[in-house]
């Protein structure tokens, strides 16, 4: 190559590389700062069954990839829209149809979808896949039992799934106990604490553990208040008109802390205690 041509080529190369680095950095900047409302969960709008057919021998890989796409939303799900949740539900369904043995999907469903208002039944519907296919694993059945009890207040179905989970090898003994409690329909708050503690021990990531820890502490607070209310009723023959009454009457030294708000909410007509308005 002649000298002149070599120099021209060198500067042309330098220019293109510089332009490429600049444009790539700007594109990265824009894409890293996409507003939350623009980060849509993207589900390929194909029926899971069709997806299973066309993915051939790459079902597992595709299941992994779909789950990966859904998991982007685990960081900022408070800002998502109902359409996103429909799409996330579809992605979980696709992933499970492709690979119903995949525990990661089951774990994400329980950690993410179950807690979402309006998605409880859908989460249960999805969890039934791994519950069926992972015949050796007590956890999917345990999750279903918890969801029936905690979100849908269906103790009968909750007890059934807890019992099924308890039969499996390696199931912690507490699973059987929890199932029995559900069957008795008593000690709901203690049952909830027991289940939440079990899930906390099984959780593998910090964000999920923090969520569960807050719930456990909230329920412990409720249990404390419920016991104090019960003691007040025994003494006075009726439930107190407010939670502060329990402190005035010396049944509580101080109000337990509510991780979800300033104080616990109390229904003076029924005597029930809540940690947030959605319950």
């Amino acid at each position: 190559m002649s000298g002149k041509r070599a120099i021209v080529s060198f500067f042309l190369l330098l220019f293109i590389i510089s332009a490429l680095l600049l444009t790539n950095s700007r594109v990265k900047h824009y894409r890293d700062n996409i507003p939350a409302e623009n980060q849509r969960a993207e589900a390929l709008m194909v029926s899971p069954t069709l997806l299973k057919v066309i993915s051939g021998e790459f079902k597992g890989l595709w299941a992994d990839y779909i789950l990966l796409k859904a998991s982007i939303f685990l960081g900022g799900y408070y800002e998502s829209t109902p359409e996103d949740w429909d799409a996330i539900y579809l992605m979980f369904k696709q992933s499970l149809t492709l690979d119903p043995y995949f525990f990661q999907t089951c774990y994400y469903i329980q950690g993410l979808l179950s807690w979402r208002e309006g998605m409880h039944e859908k989460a249960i519907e999805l969890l039934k896949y791994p519950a069926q296919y992972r015949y050796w694993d007590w956890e999917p059945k345990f999750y279903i039992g918890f969801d029936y009890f905690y979100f849908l207040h269906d103790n009968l179905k909750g007890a059934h799934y807890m019992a099924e989970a308890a039969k499996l090898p390696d199931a912690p003994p507490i699973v059987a106990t929890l199932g029995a409690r559900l069957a008795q329909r008593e000690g709901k708050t203690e049952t909830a604490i027991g289940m939440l503690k079990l899930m906390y021990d099984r959780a593998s990531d910090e964000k999920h553990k923090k969520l569960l820890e807050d719930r456990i502490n909230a329920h412990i607070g409720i249990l404390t208040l419920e016991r104090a209310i019960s003691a007040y009723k025994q003494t006075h023959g009726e439930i107190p008109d407010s939670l502060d009454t329990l402190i005035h009457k010396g049944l509580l030294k101080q109000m337990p802390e509510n991780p979800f708000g300033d104080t616990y909410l109390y229904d003076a007509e029924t005597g029930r205690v809540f940690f947030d308005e959605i319950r």
Partner: protein
Amino acid sequence: MDRVWLISLVTLKEGIRNRALQGILIIALFSCVAYLTIIPMFAFDTGKVAVDLGFASMTLAGLAIVIFLGIGLLTQDIHQRSVCMILSRPVSRTQYVLGKFLGLSGIVLVAVLIIALIGVLSGWAGITFISEMTLPRNFTWHILGVGVLFNFLSLMIVMSIAFLFTVLTTNAYLSMLFTFGVYIIGQSLETIVKVVTAGDFARVGALYAWMLNVLTWIVPNLRAFDLKVHISYGLPLSVPYTLWTAAYGIFYIGIIIFLTAMVFRYQEIK
């Protein structure tokens, strides 16, 4: 530049008349229309389904053209020596590379436009005759046009990479394999990096995260050119983002073609 246009025209003619292209287009056209039969099965907003499937047809057909037809034509030229017909003339190797790339781009552009047109027509037919089918939210022709253009740009990036690999390897299948690999990585790398660096549900070592970051500067970010979500949900598309992304695509193609010309200049044609 005359000779560049000459080569690009001859390449375009050769490609357009190729039966493989015609076959790919027929399948794409069929799939563009076939989705109308499955729209009623979907409960979700059908406009989005139409966009997804229409663009899927365009991308799949485009990829088939790039990987099978494009690499096929290049292999015929470089490995089977029909390039001698051109290089025995007063045509430089750089002119050949540029002309060939432009010609191949022309083939893909024609295919993309045909499929886009059929997609629009079948979409109109769907909205007119199928009650379940609706337009995507906040639909505009402008955003559809930009979406089609970006789809074309991303195919051009893949084509340029296919060209480089064809010149570097001695085997058409190797070239196809590597090109497809880069396509897959280019589509999924951004997602993987987001999950690894920004998500709370995965923890990876610093070295691995650094390597992934380096890779984002080398492998083309093909996700940036995917505007299906914007079209489907009527999301705003900023002008700066559009311009920067288009510029990124053009400069990426530029560097790959530059490298291809450099490699080809020193290559022996035996």
